[in-house]
């Protein structure tokens, strides 16, 4: 580029467009944000997605149902179990499969462990986004325990391919329930440790309370779901409102944001809902671990998945929100069409709404509090 001397007539003050990502430490993956700024103040954000697009839905049209599960794994790579579970219950709904009780219990146990693991990442990276590094390593340390459990379960630490339509790939390994109980007893005090160092930290509250307020009606209009919606004070959780699997058997609360430190629906509320949800997941795990029956997990596993002609929509409360799978079957072993409703995609769409007029630092906090996973957004 040629160097030009500064021409006074072309100097103008105005908005600067700042390109954040796809390579940026805190866009939680390969998200690109076009930020219109006036100094530090942000006037508009355009999220640009698609850097991780892997044609998930198109792939599904050429694969048998059994082989789609490894792909759903890779959608939300921080909560693979939830994706598998969501896809499996949708296919089971299409085929009217009745599952043995043991399968349902194991699914709930791994799903709630996965929820804790995913929320640990969300909470830790939110701390990282506002500058606290130590809580992040603590949460990763605890998540490691869950990944170790999953490794004994199915050999994989991130992409499990464990929950299959009609059952599970393996039964639980010996002592898994005992190890899970050990983990729960280890992990429960760690939540209060996290609360001490991060949740109630004065600087953390300054940074997150009253920032990025998402009112409940706006959240509903944008289709925000999951902890981000509950942070706005809306009590909506599919595990309670539209129970799937065996969630109606368990006794647990749905934490919602109350605006303890500021306004209802601010970053702190969204963060705190996740912390409280980890506690609720522990409650569910306690009950599930004590009630789990014996049985054969492969009992209902179909030899060949070949649903009758028809279509189905299955909903599932994943760690990020309301995952939906819409499957059209034409009677073959390959689905005609699979559409996935991605909760993080809808949650991301609200970013511009809640970030307008805040500073660049707050954009990072807002983005972190929405807890997006780009694998799921881009699919």
């Amino acid at each position, binding site marked *: 580029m040629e160097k030009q001397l500064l021409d006074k007539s072309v100097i103008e003050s105005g908005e600067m467009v700042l390109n954040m990502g796809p390579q940026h*430490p805190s866009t939680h993956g390969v998200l690109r944000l076009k930020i219109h700024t006036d100094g530090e103040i942000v006037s508009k954000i355009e999220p640009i997605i698609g850097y991780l697009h892997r044609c998930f839905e198109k792939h599904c049209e050429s694969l048998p149902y059994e082989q789609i599960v490894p792909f759903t794994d890779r959608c939300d790579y921080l909560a693979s179990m939830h994706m598998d579970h969501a896809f499996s219950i949708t296919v089971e709904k299409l085929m009217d499969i009745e599952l043995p009780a043991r399968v349902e219990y194991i699914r709930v146990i791994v799903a709630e462990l996965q929820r804790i693991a995913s929320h640990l990442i969300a909470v830790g990276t939110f701390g990282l986004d506002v500058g*606290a*590094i*130590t809580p992040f390593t603590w949460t990763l340390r605890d998540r490691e325990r869950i990944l170790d459990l999953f490794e004994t379960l199915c050999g994989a630490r991130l992409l499990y391919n464990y929950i299959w339509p009609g059952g599970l790939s393996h039964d639980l390994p010996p002592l898994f329930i005992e190890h899970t109980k050990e983990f729960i007893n280890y992990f429960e005090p760690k939540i209060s440790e996290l609360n001490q160092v991060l949740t109630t930290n004065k600087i953390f509250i300054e940074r997150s309370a009253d920032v990025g307020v998402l009112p409940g009606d706006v959240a509903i209009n944008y289709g925000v779901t999951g902890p981000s919606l509950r942070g706005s004070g809306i009590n909506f959780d599919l595990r309670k409102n539209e129970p799937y699997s065996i969630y109606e058997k368990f006794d647990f609360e749905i934490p919602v944001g109350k605006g303890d430190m500021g306004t209802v629906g601010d970053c702190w509320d969204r963060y705190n809902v996740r912390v409280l949800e980890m506690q609720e997941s522990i409650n569910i795990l306690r009950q599930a671990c004590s009630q789990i029956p014996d049985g054969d997990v492969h009992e209902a596993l179909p030899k060949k998945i070949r649903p009758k002609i028809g279509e189905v929509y299955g909903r599932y409360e994943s760690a990020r929100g309301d995952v939906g799978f819409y499957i059209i079957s034409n009677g073959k072993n390959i689905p005609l069409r699979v559409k996935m409703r991605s909760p993080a995609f809808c949650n991301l769409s609200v970013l511009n709404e809640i970030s307008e007029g805040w*500073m*660049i630092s707050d954009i990072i906090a807002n983005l972190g509090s929405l807890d997006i996973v780009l694998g799921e957004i881009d699919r």
Partner: protein
Amino acid sequence: MISTVDSLLDAFSYLKIPSETLLTIIIVTSGIIIFTIMAVNTLFAVYFERKVSAFMQDRLGPMEVGIFGFKGGKKFWGGIGQIIADGIKLLTKEDILPNNADKVLMILAPFIIFSGALLTFIGIPLSQNLVVSDFNIGIFYIISMSSVGVIGIILAGWSSNNKWSLYGSMRAAAQIISYEIPIALSLLLVVLVVGSLHLGEIVQWQADNRWFILHSPFSFLAFFIYYISTVAETNRTPFDIPEAESELVAGWMTEYSGFRWSLFFLSEYANILIVSIVASIVFLGGWLSPLHIINVFPESWQLLDGPVLGLFWLFFKAVLLIFVMMWFRWTFPRLRVDQLMYLCWKVFIPFALANLFFVSLWELILK
């Protein structure tokens, strides 16, 4: 107090060397010694920081790299060779200058920052009679020299031709310039009580009376204002907004790599050492032993004083303060720009000004 340069000039005056040549040799030598102190300080501070952060985060930190026959592993010496490996890595890294950068300014900027830190060291006494040049305006010199670096930061941010760097440097400039005011005001309090800008005399005053931090409630407060402001001045968490890695990638250093970047690093840790040493000298009795806190045993404390032990005490106090800074860094989240400015202009400066007023009254009444 006699400066090292003067005493060396006297010591070597019997040699038949022209005095100008001798002076040049001595000045160059002391420059090299200061540079060595800075480099060694950086190496050890980085290792210290990595270990401190590791222990706070339930990790082990560097454990593998051994040195001089000490193998890495779960021994005390675990990973001590990392400091050498880090240095070699930095110096052999590819040196990148972006195409559209203003190359002259970009090359110049690290040296400006570095010379700011280097020049500050000239006026800092490390022990009794161990100072390169003994200024009678010591504190004033140190404050002014440590502000030179901000020019380099602005140049670095501007010349990189990167919006992130620009943001970082603008934030840094605003922050460093703002926080110099509470720093200067709290040091002024000491100057007002002692009646001298000379660091040696300030320590002598503390030897005659007591450590300054315990002199009055106001000097106690002044110490904390000074200390927290220096954390901001050295761009460390919770005030690390200029290089906020989760927001601005690496702030004003984003486009730097290799040796130039290591110069930034060197000056950053040198600045941390400088502010800690100044805090130790001015508020914590400098090279006086801890027995001087309130001066209860006037006879016995002299045993623990002296040039060599003085060096030890000064570094002991400074390292303690550095440790607390690291503790901050690995515990707190980061403040936002406006909150940072609020803290400076609406909390620290009014308190420091009030402090100055009340300490004058205190002195007036008690004397």
